[in-house]
């Protein structure tokens, strides 16, 4: 008995079905979604992020941040995303179209980062937090990233860029902690994460 061809046809069409349905159908229907042009302000949304932030996005990928942080806000009433202040509206497909790699994420060991740039606009907070999360968020289980900073001996004047650390985290006398370009890029990326514009398909919830 030779039922090879039957099996082959079956397994081919079984997968072709979902490939067509999930991948190709959506690729055709919204795979070329364009930014929204707001005629009142003559601006396009979402806006592209600048070059430094774009490099920070690369650091975000290298360090695997996506495994603990999502970048998606679910609609009000579905989960507590908006109640926790992670965004004042649902995030929709158009919010992501300018990102060459989408970091939706599937795990919230840490909080959502879709609007972290609005929530925590202070660069100093982010530098300290990356150097050691315990400084800003005691009890956090986020790992420290000391390798994004340089510990160097103070020669002459201390650097303007040196971190202003609380005593228990400060380096020994005569040393200072200075961010590397990667830390600058990552912080720029954090600050670029915002959702402060309206899209017709996702109006901001009334406060």
């Amino acid at each position: 008995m030779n039922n090879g061809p039957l099996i082959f046809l079956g397994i081919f069409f079984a997968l072709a079905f979902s490939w067509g349905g999930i991948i190709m159908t959506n690729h055709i229907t919204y795979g070329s979604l364009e930014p929204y042009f707001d005629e009142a302000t003559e601006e396009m949304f979402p806006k592209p992020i600048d070059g430094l932030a774009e490099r920070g996005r690369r650091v975000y990928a290298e360090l695997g941040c996506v495994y603990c942080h999502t970048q998606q806000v679910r609609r009000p009433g579905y989960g507590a995303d908006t109640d926790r202040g992670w965004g004042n509206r649902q995030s929709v497909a158009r919010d992501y179209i300018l990102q060459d790699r989408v970091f939706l994420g599937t795990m919230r060991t840490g909080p959502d980062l879709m609007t972290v740039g609005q929530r925590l606009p202070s660069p100093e907070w982010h530098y300290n937090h990356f150097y050691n999360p315990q400084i800003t968020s005691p009890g956090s289980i986020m790992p420290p990233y000391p390798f994004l900073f340089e510990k160097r001996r103070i020669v002459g004047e201390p650097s303007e860029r040196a971190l202003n650390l609380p005593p228990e985290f400060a380096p020994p006398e005569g040393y200072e902690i200075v961010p590397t370009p990667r830390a600058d890029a990552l912080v720029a990326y954090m600050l670029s994460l915002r959702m402060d514009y309206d899209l017709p398909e996702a109006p901001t919830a009334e406060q």
Partner: protein
Amino acid sequence: MEWLFYLIAFIVALCITFTGAWALRWAVRQGQLSNLEEQSRSIFTEEEPEGRQSDFFPGRGGSSRRSRRQR
């Protein structure tokens, strides 16, 4: 343009359905769906026949004390 997409989708769906129906009919005609249970015995051979367990903890094979006790 949208109607073209739905037309193509419809034709593809028809093709898939008909191919499936054809394959099923072909299989039935070939007799592949008859005598199904017989196929489940194809894993047994003269060396490892049906009705005989073929794996034990080492040293506790067919003639082990434990199995005798159970008889």
